[in-house]
């Protein structure tokens, strides 16, 4: 089974695969097919979800209060020491510097995002706008992860979960690079309102509906409050999630959302109650328009 499986052979193994009950050779062959077959991938996802439900078949087993509290204390202590408030995947360093951020007033933003010529102009200036350091760092991270994956695969000593984690991380870095540099990426620059240090950029990869928001020099929200990111259209304000910047004021938010190319008017950040709001309740303190009006 070390060689490729046919579609039919793979289909017959997906139930075992969802339980992680295949031999290593069967698993590798099945996964190789799954990686290229959308139908099998979807089926496997559904089966894995079913398998995960089996966990609910056990009777909950509370710990003793002392045991529970001891463990809880240890966890919170570790978490406090580890705290990494950037929203995404261990990006502990700024993705771009403030110097790279073009103030919204100075940016020659196109009047309408939907105009092909304006998008072309934005794409052409993308390299100048993007932080080279950010890309280099992301590429470097991907290369390190690839090397790590190679080592893991060669040694055969690492367990399957480590391998899978490396694959996921590499795919994620690849996606991030594409979302920042793809031919269909629009860049919006956000500046503080009414002016100040915070700044940010939103990268909209319209080919895959991916949004990547990178912010710098954000002050910590007030106690009990959080920041909320909004996509503003003529008819509604769409929440892009809540986030809290790191101690260095940096934050990265990534999201998927399909939006008509001409619909976006602005991107804004407001301060909201810590669970977020259905609609903005405060004046945006950092905002970028998608079109100059």
């Amino acid at each position, binding site marked *: 089974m070390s060689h490729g499986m046919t579609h039919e052979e793979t289909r017959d193994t997906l139930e075992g695969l969802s339980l992680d009950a295949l031999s290593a050779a069967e698993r590798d062959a099945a996964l190789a097919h799954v990686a290229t077959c959308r139908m099998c991938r979807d089926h496997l996802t559904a089966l894995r979800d079913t398998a995960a439900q089996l966990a609910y078949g056990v009777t909950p087993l*509370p710990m003793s209060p002392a045991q529970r509290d001891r463990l809880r204390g240890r966890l919170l202590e570790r978490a406090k020491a580890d705290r990494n408030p*950037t929203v995404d995947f261990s990006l502990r360093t700024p993705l771009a510097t403030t110097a790279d951020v073009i103030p919204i007033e100075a940016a020659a933003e196109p009047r309408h995002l939907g105009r092909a010529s304006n998008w072309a102009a934005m794409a052409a200036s993308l390299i100048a706008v993007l932080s080279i350091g950010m890309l280099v760092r992301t590429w470097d991270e991907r290369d390190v992860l690839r090397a790590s994956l190679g080592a893991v695969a060669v040694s055969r000593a690492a367990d399957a979960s480590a391998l899978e984690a490396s694959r996921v991380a590499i795919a994620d870095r690849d996606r991030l690079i594409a979302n920042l540099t793809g031919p269909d990426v629009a860049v919006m620059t956000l500046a503080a309102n009414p002016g100040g240090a915070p700044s940010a950029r939103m990268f909209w990869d319209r080919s895959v509906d991916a949004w990547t928001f990178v912010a710098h020099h954000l002050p910590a929200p007030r106690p009990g409050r959080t920041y909320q990111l909004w996509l503003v259209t003529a008819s509604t304000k769409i929440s892009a999630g809540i986030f809290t910047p790191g101690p260095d004021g940096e934050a990265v938010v990534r999201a998927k959302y399909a939006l008509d190319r001409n619909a976006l008017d602005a991107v804004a950040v407001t301060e909201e109650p810590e669970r977020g709001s259905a609609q903005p309740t405060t004046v945006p303190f950092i905002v970028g328009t998608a079109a100059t009006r």
Partner: protein
Amino acid sequence: MDPSAPTPPYLSPSAEVPPVETAGGAPADASLLQRMSAGDEQALGVLYDRWHAYVHAIVVRILQRPDEADDVVEEVFWQAWRQAGRFDPARGSAQTWLLTIARSRALDRVRAVKRRREEPLDGEGTAPIFEAAAEGDPGLDAEASERRTIVLAALSDLPPEQREALELGYFSGLSQSEIAERTGQPLGTIKTRTRLAMQKLRGRLQMLREVAR
């Protein structure tokens, strides 16, 4: 929503914020994970308070060594803390995500112990894994209780030999070859039992969920 995206999709198609609290007003698990990914350790505390009994049960069941469960339970929540940003609600619920981590970490520990001691992965003559739900299931929130009831109902519909194949695969981490060896059945029989069990379970869970709505 891209199901392959490992990071949390914050945007909801309905142009509203994702559910941030349960019907009872407590923060929803997905919301807790979102806060954890932003560095809020208090959210980790809430998640722990809510789910430690379940995680503990799964870990103890798989390890079969309650005295070693603490470390694994801690590692489960620690992984949840570190990887909260990768949780994708499009792929399933936060509870399922957490319990899947619990199973994986417990099996990792068992396999590591097995490699060291060359002992069998699972114990002999253990108590039934899937037991009838206790009345009210104190300690569980309403959603988890309902989910548990549904899963147990679906499992009760399976023939015993199919349930056994699932139990040995899921909780004991045995491969199908090992299950065949353990049960004395041909490998092909075990594969068929597993396949049928999963197919039935999937269908039953889907139906029971719809009935429960």
